[in-house]
């Protein structure tokens, strides 16, 4: 096929040549020998579907996030989709979410047959909790907040809205592993917390993967059935489900990295704080307010920037892998036309889509690189 739609990897080809990159996988997995020998064991044991490595991974996540259960699934998208389906969400239902997110959040909602209902966000990129109540109708069955870039949405407000309206919260915590706010972990706020193990996430694998955290053991039973064809034994099918399993090989990789997660998260945080301090005083940019009760894990380092497109171009010319996550809000996507939204419906999200820039902030970024990024930004705005 001439028209290649496998664009995902090729989009990074150019980025690889830059000196300060978003993609750090080569460095991250430079100690893969240990992973290889574990993968060999898995293969020799014929342990390809679920199995011990997956069990161990789920247990470690429970300890880390503090939920009673963790169910590993095929992707972060499936984590959200299966959560919604396990709650019985179906065509005709409405699910409230944010228009400022990756397409997968909306895909997970739309593929259950439910209607995504958007609520605008605040200056910190997250859904505006004060506006959720007015979007609730008699058909609302769930709220899917996104902890954008690793900054948790306010758990107190979410819980209040959820309790007052008897509507469950399904957290899209794909960016937010180890993040917490007011001492509540991202992923432990709602009915379920949904995470991704996609290669570019803070905790990642060598392919697609995801997991669901929950304290609801009935939901746990249902989700375990749903991810594996609804099978309660080899031959008996209790409910029609799906195939959405974390590959055992991928669990090996994730387990290996899990041990390093606290350390690499701290490096991201330190990098972000250093960049915050260096960018203080730049005219033309707006960084979300940092407070001590909001523990962000900086999956991305995002801020609003005047003349954003020119800044991105300028930084790329200077070998910095600046990106736009993401330049078109969800309600303005072609895919969302059937929902009937129009430009102007969510002014904050639309502005963020036009203004926001994201810079590499992962654990392999060193202080000199931070300085280089901030120097360039200073130069761009102040000459």
């Amino acid at each position, binding site marked *: 096929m001439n028209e290649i739609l496998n664009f995902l990897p090729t989009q990074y080809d150019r980025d690889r040549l830059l000196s300060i990159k978003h993609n750090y996988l080569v460095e991250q997995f430079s100690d893969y020998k240990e992973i290889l020998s574990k993968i060999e064991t898995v293969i020799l044991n014929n342990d390809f579907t679920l199995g011990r490595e997956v069990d161990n991974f789920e247990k470690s996540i429970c300890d880390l996030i503090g939920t009673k259960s963790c169910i590993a699934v095929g992707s972060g998208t499936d984590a959200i989709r299966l959560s919604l389906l396990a709650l019985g969400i179906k065509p005709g239902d409405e699910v409230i979410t944010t228009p400022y997110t990756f397409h997968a959040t909306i895909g997970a909602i739309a593929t259950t047959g439910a209607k995504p209902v958007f609520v605008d966000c605040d200056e910190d990129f997250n859904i505006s909790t004060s506006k959720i109540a007015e979007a609730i109708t008699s058909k609302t069955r769930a709220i899917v907040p996104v902890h954008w870039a690793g900054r948790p949405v306010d758990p107190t407000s979410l819980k209040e809205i959820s309790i007052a309206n008897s509507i469950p919260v399904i957290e899209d915590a794909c960016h937010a592993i180890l993040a917490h706010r007011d001492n509540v972990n991202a992923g432990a706020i709602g009915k379920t917390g949904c995470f991704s193990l996609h290669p570019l996430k803070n905790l990642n694998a060598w392919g697609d993967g995801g997991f669901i955290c929950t304290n609801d053991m009935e939901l746990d039973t249902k989700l375990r059935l749903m991810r594996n064809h609804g099978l309660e034994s080899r031959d008996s099918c209790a409910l*029609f489900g799906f195939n959405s399993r974390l*590959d055992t090989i991928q669990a090996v990789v994730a387990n290996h990295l899990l041990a390093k997660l606290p350390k690499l998260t701290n490096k991201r945080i330190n990098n972000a704080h250093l960049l915050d301090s260096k960018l203080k005083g730049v005219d033309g940019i707006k960084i979300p307010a940092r407070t001590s009760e909001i523990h962000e894990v900086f999956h991305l380092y995002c801020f609003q920037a005047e003349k954003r497109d020119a800044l991105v171009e300028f930084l790329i010319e200077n070998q910095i892998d600046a990106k*736009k996550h993401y330049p078109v809000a969800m309600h303005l996507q*072609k895919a*969302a036309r059937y929902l009937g939204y129009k430009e102007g419906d969510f002014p904050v999200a639309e502005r963020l889509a036009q203004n926001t820039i994201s810079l590499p902030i992962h654990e392999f970024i060193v202080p000199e690189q931070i300085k280089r990024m901030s120097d360039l930004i200073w130069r761009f705005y102040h000459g």
Partner: protein
Amino acid sequence: MDKMRVPFVDLSRFFAKHKTRILELTEEVGESGNYILGDIVEDFENDFAEYCGVNFAISVGNGTDAIALSLRALRIGVGDEVIIPANSFIATAGAVIEAGAKPICVDVDQDQNISLNAIQNSLSDKTRAIIVVHLNGNPANIQNIKNVFKGSKIRIIEDAAQSIGATLNGELTGSFGDCGCFSLHPLKNFHMFGDAGMITTNSGDLAKELKILRNHGLIDRDRCEVFSRNSRLDTLQASYGKYLLPYLDDWTDRVIKIAEYYNQNFEGLFYIPRTRDNVKSVYHNYVIQTPLRGELSNFLQLHGIDTKIHYPIPICEQPAWQNCSLPTADIPMVQRHKEEILSLPIYAELTDLEIEYVVDNVKAFYRNTIKVRKAI
């Protein structure tokens, strides 16, 4: 005859042969930092398409998703009916349910493949697709089915998860229908080392649509054409697939030889899965049919030989089917099969000694049983 242990499957034997290269590939992909889609996936898709004799192959996360995404791409959903054989793996029905359509179970012929008669008796004005499963690697009469529904609005999807390399009149399964769906799960005759799936089609439009649907509905990094799912074949798994595909014909040849040897030796004892003229079956399972199924299975187990039943509960008798209040089906042949079918071990790495051991034990069982019956 010394007692042996013959496992039903043993992937470690397979892995032992390919270990060095598989681990090298793991290292190469791990080192590359390229884990999603990319050239490796595309090369594997091209090789797979060429192998199956079709224009396009689109890799996906698993075989279930292959069917679910195909249905969606063919615009089959709420209000539509999809005919499936009642004796398939449960995932066939699960994929139809996911699409929002209603699965209609039908009976099969003696060879366990979907019955054209049964299909015709189950048609309604809502029928939009038929999923033809080439069960056990034995091609169904798909050409006849195709001829009957030519020019109609009814789409034909092949579930070729067990039949890669099988042919009908020289043409490969997966190349007959609007599309062909494959699972490459570790227990399939051609497999990776984790979940994996593939869709084959000759339609460029369908191929394009499927590539969008498997990847969040994205047409580039930032633009979403239609809200969809994430169902991609991991690059790591594709690297294994690309390496293993050239070996497939050798394994298949060996498996067919084992099946033929079984056939020769079991002639007259019970129903054997002999292939029809102009058909090449790849024997994903070697399934016999005998009223003495339970006794034979116990006897073989006592002698260290694993057997299995694919599958003991028809789809329309599953608790899930009943919970969804789906219609009951008239499936006398499937009912009989579920009491009589037995799968014997069959894979390329079985040794000649093990094959002989299986044959000797099956024959010994029948000699003893017949002796006892005569005596009583």
